[in-house]
């Protein structure tokens, strides 16, 4: 390994990813708010060219892709590039490639957003980007995986800490999933196509965002509490059971649909068995927290982390329950689903990313966070927003589901049912505003931290020179 010059910033790749993720978060949240306003006023922004570029069908995938691949994936990779060398006690390998992938990833997200806005889509949920962008994604992720695995291979630490298992697994799984998930729209049709779509759609959450997030929880929690990790055995159980059961989650999206019974069972049983990894991880989290609960009151990053872990638990109590035939027959296709989907992605794993960035971004910059008060505001606004969003969509979803069973699937009854959901859509929009403001507070806080740190280092250089 060539020894990098000491003057170079070892955190540059990580910084490129983390700074970019802040930008995409801002953009993604704005799109989210526009979407929630369209539920209240369907004609919102419906004039001139906006009528085309901001129609619901286009901005919905723009929103999901921006927050999933622009914000959370970039934040995750930025965290990987920081945490992996720390756990291996060495430097990031191939730093230039690592930094380069950061720039490529930004181009990918931009190109994907433009393509979706222009109306080019593959209609695969979370994989709407056109095929040529998918090729870039695979190459980019392969480069990221190369950097991470090379770093781990040259480690100066014998033992592989739990987080590293999760990270290595996630990097392999994401590439595999992405290839499998993005091909069938050309190769398959009908039910098999949707089976693969949902194999991808559910697993990109479960084997990338979840597993990187859990790996980060395992890193942040002992760090923030200064407690030893509670149980090695539990982390082993958690890792291997999520690796075994998660990939089988796809078919439960076609529950009660045109798939054979054995496939339904093959989807439902592992979905329910996911209780094993989730409860094992959570038992490990609470075990590690033992004796340090008092720290929660004053340590805001720890608050984000623990509330994130609790949201993860709640999501994964819902998930197995949804996958069963009865509940699925009510809530499928209703507003319940976006409520459930926001819980892991915004509630759990964005919270973990927030926690990571609050703790380690100032460390990379050798400075202190700009404002602890703003961090508190971010926390309370984000939690409030998440609760309002979740409960408004869940209530609306259950009401819609039963109304449809009663016959309100057609004609005027459907429209009447939709109109009667307006109060819930209004709460949902308020939640959107709270989540948007909270994110902007977060971005402002970190931007000010970065600006102040850069000013300080410039001053130091001048005084040193």
């Amino acid at each position: 390994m060539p020894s990098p010059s000491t003057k170079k910033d070892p955190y540059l790749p990580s910084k490129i990813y983390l700074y970019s993720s802040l930008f995409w978060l801002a953009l993604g949240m704005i799109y989210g708010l526009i979407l929630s306003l369209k539920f209240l006023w369907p004609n919102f922004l419906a004039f001139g060219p906006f009528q085309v570029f901001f129609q619901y069908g286009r901005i919905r995938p723009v929103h999901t892709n921006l927050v999933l691949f622009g914000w959370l994936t970039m934040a995750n990779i930025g965290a990987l590039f920081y945490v992996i060398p720390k756990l291996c006690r060495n430097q990031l390998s191939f730093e230039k490639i690592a930094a380069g992938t950061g720039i490529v990833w930004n181009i990918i997200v931009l190109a994907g957003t433009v393509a979706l806005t222009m109306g080019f889509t593959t209609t695969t949920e979370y994989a709407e980007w056109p095929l040529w962008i998918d090729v870039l994604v695979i190459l980019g992720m392969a480069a990221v995986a190369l950097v991470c695995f090379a770093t781990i291979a040259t480690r100066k630490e014998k033992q592989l800490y739990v987080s590293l298992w999760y990270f290595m697994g996630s990097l392999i799984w994401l590439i595999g999933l992405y290839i499998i998930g993005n091909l069938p729209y050309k190769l398959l049709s009908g039910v098999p196509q949707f089976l693969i779509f949902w194999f991808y759609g559910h697993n990109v959450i479960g084997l990338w965002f979840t597993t990187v997030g859990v790996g980060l929880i395992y890193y942040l929690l002992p760090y923030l509490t200064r407690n030893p990790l509670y149980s090695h055995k539990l982390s082993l159980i958690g890792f291997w059971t999520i690796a075994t059961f998660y990939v089988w989650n796809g078919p439960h999206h076609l529950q009660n649909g045109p798939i054979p019974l054995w496939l339904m069972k093959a989807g439902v049983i592992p979905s329910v068995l996911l209780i094993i990894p989730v409860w094992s991880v959570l038992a490990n989290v609470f075990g590690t927290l033992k004796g340090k609960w008092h720290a929660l009151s004053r340590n805001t990053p720890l608050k984000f982390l623990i509330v994130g872990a609790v949201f993860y638990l709640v999501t994964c109590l819902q998930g197995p329950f949804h996958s069963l035939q009865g509940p699925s027959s009510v809530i499928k296709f209703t507003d319940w689903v976006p409520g459930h989907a926001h819980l892991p992605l915004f509630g759990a794993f964005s919270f973990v990313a927030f926690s990571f960035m609050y703790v380690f971004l100032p460390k990379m910059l050798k400075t202190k966070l700009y404002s602890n008060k703003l961090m508190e505001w971010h926390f309370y606004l984000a939690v409030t927003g998440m609760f309002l969003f979740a409960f408004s969509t869940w209530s609306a979803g259950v009401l819609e589901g039963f109304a449809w069973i009663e016959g309100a699937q057609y004609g005027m009854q459907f429209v009447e049912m939709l109109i009667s959901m307006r109060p819930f859509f209004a709460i949902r929009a308020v939640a959107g505003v709270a989540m948007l403001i909270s994110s902007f507070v977060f971005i402002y806080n970190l931007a000010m931290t970065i600006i102040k740190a850069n000013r300080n280092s410039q001053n130091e250089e001048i005084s040193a020179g």
Partner: protein
Amino acid sequence: MSRDDEKINESSTVEPDGETKEEEPPVHSVVEGSGGFRIGNAKVPPFLIVTYLVLAIWAFGYGMMAVPLNQTAETAADGEAIFEQSCLGCHSITDEPKVGPGLEDVHLKYTEEELQLILVNGIGEMPSLPALGLNTEQIKAVKDYVQTL
């Protein structure tokens, strides 16, 4: 790159005021792990073992015994009964018109698709069947019955 700022056990992240009281770790034996982390070897809590067992038994039972929802639903809707309740006020089952036309040989007049459209959307004065509070299964039963007239 020095790791001075990364001595996890000495940093005062728990108590921001700088107070660093050592507490008894909540697990019995602790080994130094990588990256400065200590790893405990607590046993799997009993409630989790019970959970694992219950889930394993459930999974086996579900795999053996689950049947699709539409096989467990209450007996299929009775088209004739629904017709008598909801349609007979306006339609006779002979070719004699009442408020609406008589429905004898209606299957010759309309194809199945056309019938489906009429039942779901209504036609002229006739309300749609969903508006009468009938669900998909019931509408299908009515359609099947009407076609036998």
